[in-house]
């Protein structure tokens, strides 16, 4: 790759130091995102995907902290950077979209206040111009009568509209990277696809890189260029979107894909991955997926390292699936 990636995460470890022990929420995760690329970060709840997102912008709440690893943004190292520097980047060069639009917007402040303050925090822009840019941003995300909406309060908007506002806020300062943490999970299915489509358009048009965090493979398959699958804090598979979905190499990924109902397999019983996600405090030694995997053996007591395969694929498994169809 000749040009530097917008975001390069290397061996990131974010642990939560609690009374009961250290919770290794993010355990040796590495990936990169190029300009204009959409990376899908997939995993179930508790896999560490949201914490990864927060680690990038330095918003991990204590008792959690980044214990080791590197996060390079446009070549600049963010781990260990000063809080001031991080604040300069947040909302400006790196923006975030949260999951629940109901709680992300402050209920007692108007929409225009919450939009314009993002602009004021990072530039010497005048009030008039800020207002115009906010109005235009709302129009871009498909909100009708933006002037009226600017004067309203969050509770006067529907869930879908609020999330569009959140997206508009994210794009306001024309960031290089947007981290979206399950932005459509709390919305109706019909609105979901609209929002996904709009976000995709905006990214394509502005060249913004995006990390889309979700548990829903279906969402990410149509949207992302590359996919990273996380399990119990570790990255278990990575590769191009079509590659990972058509030819998964890790048993967990295969299980995930297999358990999505689709009309190709109508009438067949739903596949499940047996067992439950392990508790992050009491992780068994070795491969975290061992207990639920039907390909495991004595070798899996050791923790597998990441293996780079051809075609930009990465797998963390001693017994990866062959490059054929899934299990």
């Amino acid at each position: 790759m000749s040009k530097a990636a917008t975001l390069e995460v290397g061996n990131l470890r974010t642990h939560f130091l609690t009374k009961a022990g250290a919770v290794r929420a993010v355990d040796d995760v590495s990936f990169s995102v190029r300009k204009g690329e959409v990376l899908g970060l997939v995993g179930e709840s508790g896999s560490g995907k949201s914490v990864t997102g927060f680690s990038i912008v330095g918003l991990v709440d204590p008792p959690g902290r980044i214990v080791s690893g590197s996060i390079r943004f446009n070549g600049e190292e963010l781990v260990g950077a000063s809080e001031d520097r991080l604040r300069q980047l947040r909302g400006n060069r790196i923006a975030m979209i949260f999951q629940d639009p109901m709680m992300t917007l402050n209920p007692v402040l108007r929409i225009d206040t919450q939009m314009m303050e993002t602009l004021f925090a990072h530039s010497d822009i005048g009030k008039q111009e800020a207002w115009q840019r906010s109005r235009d941003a709302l129009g871009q995300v498909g909100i009708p009568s933006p002037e009226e909406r600017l004067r309203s309060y969050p509770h006067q908007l529907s869930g879908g509209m609020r999330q569009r506002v959140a997206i508009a806020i994210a794009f306001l300062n024309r960031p290089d990277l947007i981290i979206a943490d399950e932005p459509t999970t709390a919305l109706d299915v019909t609105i979901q696809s609209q929002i996904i489509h709009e976000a995709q358009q905006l990214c394509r048009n502005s060249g913004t890189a995006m990390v889309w965090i979700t548990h829903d493979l279906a969402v990410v398959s149509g949207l992302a260029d590359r996919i990273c699958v996380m399990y119990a804090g570790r990255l278990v598979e990575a590769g191009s979107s079509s590659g990972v979905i058509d030819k998964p190499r890790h048993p967990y990924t295969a299980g995930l894909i297999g358990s999505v109902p689709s009309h190709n397999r109508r009438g067949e019983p739903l596949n499940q991955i047996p067992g439950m996600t392990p508790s992050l405090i009491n992780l068994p030694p070795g491969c975290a997926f061992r207990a639920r995997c039907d390909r495991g053996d004595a070798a899996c007591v050791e923790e597998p390292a990441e293996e780079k395969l051809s075609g930009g694929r990465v797998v963390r498994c001693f017994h990866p699936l062959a490059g054929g169809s899934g299990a």
Partner: protein
Amino acid sequence: MTAFMIRRLLQSAAVVFVMSVIVFFGVNVVGDPVDMLINPEADQEDIENAIKALGLDRPIGEQYLHFAKNALTGNLGKSFIFGEPALMLILQRMPATMELAFAALMMAIFLGIPLGLYAGLKPESPVSRTVMASSILGFSLPTFWVGLMMIMVFAVILGWLPSTGRGETATFLGITSSLFTLNGLSHILMPALNLALLKISLVIRITRAGTREAIHQDYIKFARAKGLSQRRVIFVHLLKNILIPVVTVLGLEFGNLVAFSVVTETIFAWPGMGKLLIDSIQQLDRPVIVAYLIIIVLLFVLLNLIVDILYSILDPRVRLGEKR
């Protein structure tokens, strides 16, 4: 908004009406109205005349109407002790009580909110721990005893502040108050602080609890993710959310302050309504008691109304109604 106000006004009127009925029946049915409203020292003939004049020999319903009519025109009976209309006596002393309650309220706001905010944001710091420990103390200390101790320490032992009475007053913008003179301030300092102690503790605890809960909310995290300065996050995003419950509590507590001034005024010999009430209870000056009760009910209802309005102004969710 207007529909809301009209509804509240009607509710308030209803409460005043109900309370007046309760007070009236309390006095005339439970207690002995002859004792309540007529000076027991008077001789038999005067008593009988008074009974006729007050209509106590009429059916109870008619008596109430008579009472209500009088009340609406401001006639709430005459004091046995002072011989003057009870209402006037109370109104004369009201400014002193209001002044005291107001000073206490200001202390609660300007001491309580900043301290509570700090304790909520940095709960582990030694300052915060001290503040929280003192607030438990402030909450538990019986006000009257604290007042006594304050007089003991600051007036008797140290001699810094006068122990009793109200200071000189001055008039400013049409309001006559002892807050405008230095002498007046020295007199009001202890009683106001004494009265405010409980409220300050309350405000500290509410502000701190609100801060601790709010700081973990998503909208605070989102505000930080937008790169807003810490100052803006705290003083705009956080504070506005916390102020709503605090204002509500404070507004209602103002009424409490007025009621509780009864104690403080007794200890510091502050010439307000409260002291008048206690004296009247002890001297069995019942018309004054009745008048005080009616006025304070009115005050409370008014206060509740104002707080409701304030609340609706501050919380846009209430003002503009839920999502369409």
